[in-house]
């Protein structure tokens, strides 16, 4: 008979060991990507996860040969603008529903919610034609506004339920303090739902940054392309040189991975605070 404490410690160690093994398998694709990026041309086609020695030549080559900075900038502009619009628009709308309780706002809310169930697949064709008619093909705005429209419903659900959970007396106190609706929104509602705002911001950032379908259709000129759609091009370009291709893939994947590692604490905190409910 083992002492319970010893038994617990052994169980903890076993669980940690199993988690590490599972994680090891889970990381294979990413490790593989990095590993190929670090290979010399001679090793590039080895069917091994790891090879030796490693070289950074591929990274040097692809960075100097390709306008990655420009592509990165395209992604950044589109993503930041979309996130800003989504957060602003959805929080205003959530405020109208949850706090102002405007007549008809619940009907509007339910209508907007159905957007969550609309697959992008059935939207790309009409959106493409709409954007063509607007002359917005190959423009930032042509992606930003549709992305925002598609992103608002989810953000709105989260922000609305957060605002509803906030004590109503706080909003009444703001009224007594003389706030008009806008001031209540700005000085009270937004700071109160900060964890949800952070969550929505990060999630929208990830989704927008990685969006592929619409970007593929709207951005046809190469100087407008975003990080998500360029890998196709490079897979043709570097067909015979996987080392260079995977170096580029690593560079493309890296910014968001680093960003997530930086903000994951706030992201999970927002989620734990009950962000995803409604």
């Amino acid at each position, binding site marked *: 008979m083992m002492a319970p404490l010893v038994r617990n410690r052994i169980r903890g160690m076993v*669980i940690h060991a199993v*988690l590490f093994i*599972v*994680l090891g398998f*889970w990381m*294979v*694709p*990413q490790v*593989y990507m990095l590993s*190929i990026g670090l290979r010399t041309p001679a090793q590039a086609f080895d*069917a*091994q*996860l790891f090879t030796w020695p490693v070289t950074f030549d591929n990274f040097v080559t692809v960075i100097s040969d390709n306008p990655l900075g420009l592509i990165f900038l395209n992604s950044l502009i589109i993503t930041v603008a979309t996130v800003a619009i989504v957060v602003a628009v959805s929080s*205003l709308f959530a405020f*109208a529903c949850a706090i102002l309780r405007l007549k008809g706002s619940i009907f*509007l809310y339910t*209508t*907007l919610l159905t*957007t*969550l*169930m609309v*697959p992008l*697949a*059935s*939207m*790309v*064709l*009409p*959106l*493409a*034609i*709409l954007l063509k008619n607007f002359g917005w093909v190959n423009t930032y705005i042509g992606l930003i*506004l*549709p992305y925002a*429209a598609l992103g*608002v419903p*989810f953000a*709105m*659900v989260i922000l609305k339920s957060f605002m509803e959970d906030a004590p109503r007396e706080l909003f009444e106190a703001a009224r007594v303090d003389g706030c008009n*609706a806008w001031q209540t*929104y700005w000085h009270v509602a937004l700071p109160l739902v900060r964890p949800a705002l952070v969550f929505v911001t990060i999630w929208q950032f990830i989704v927008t940054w*990685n969006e*592929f379908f619409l970007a593929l259709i709207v951005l046809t000129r190469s100087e407008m392309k975003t*990080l*998500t*759609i*360029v*890998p*196709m091009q490079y*897979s043709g370009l570097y067909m015979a040189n996987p080392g260079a291709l*995977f170096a580029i*893939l690593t560079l*493309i994947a890296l910014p968001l991975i680093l960003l*997530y590692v930086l903000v*994951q604490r706030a992201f*999970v905190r927002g989620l*734990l605070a*009950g*962000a*995803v409910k409604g």
Partner: protein
Amino acid sequence: MRAGSVTTAVERRSASRASRLYLFALPATLLFVVFIAYPIVWVAGQSFYAGTADRGTVFAGLANYTTVLSDPTFWTVVRNMFLWGIITIPVQMLIGGLLAYFIERHTHALRGFFRTMFFLPVVTSVSVISLVWVQIYAPYYGIAQEYLKHIGIVMMTSPIGDPKTAIYALIVVNIWQWTGFSMLMYIAGIANLPNEVLDAARIDGARGWRLAVHVIVPMLAPATKSLLLLGVIGTLQTFPIVHLMTGGGPNRASEVFGTFIFKQSFVLGDTGSGAALSVIVLVIALVLSLIQIAVLGARLSPAGKQDP
């Protein structure tokens, strides 16, 4: 007299104030009308016309729909989407749930590390993921065939090059990419479980697996329901992985709604049947969502909190 005039002034002011409040709802409504509602209405209308948008169209009634429905590829797509949902959703829930359970309840110092690492595929660009997996699956130089050999699985060709296996190979990639999301939803659900209930269950003698199966799993029902809803929608959204890894092939064996619509509309330029397909997908999505909402309730929530 004086009091009376003040009343009307106050009332007039509050009336104009009330209408100005609708400005809060305006931007979201505008975005919705222009970029969601109008396109849907347009595509619904277009699905009854034949020809292309460029060269004029003629009313075709249900012709587009009959064309699409009689296309054998359509039924391949339906089968693929069904397989996709029926495999992806439960497997992700199971793996994600197990990871969440062990990470939340049995790790401390490394909790944040595990949470982050398992979530990384979600934040990795899908195009990167697709190309990496093409390499993994590759014949001769891919690591899949090399390492699976050792456990007795011999692959002569790439699994995505064989019509029989292509869709399953893609499903594996999809599961790998999105399990982290299921895990995080369950983590939030587990973290938000009311401690009193867990304590009560332990005092009642429920420990270990019995605690997990009889108390924790039922209490995570909200997270499970949300994942189901998001899973069905996500399945119908499927596009990049298939487009990038197989392009719907070989021989259209791994075609999904996204790639099918893309081909009809943008490669073949057949706007009418593209539109009809779009409408069919839309209807399927709405019907499935409504069924789920009717049966399970409408909520996106990892926690056991009761909404009013």
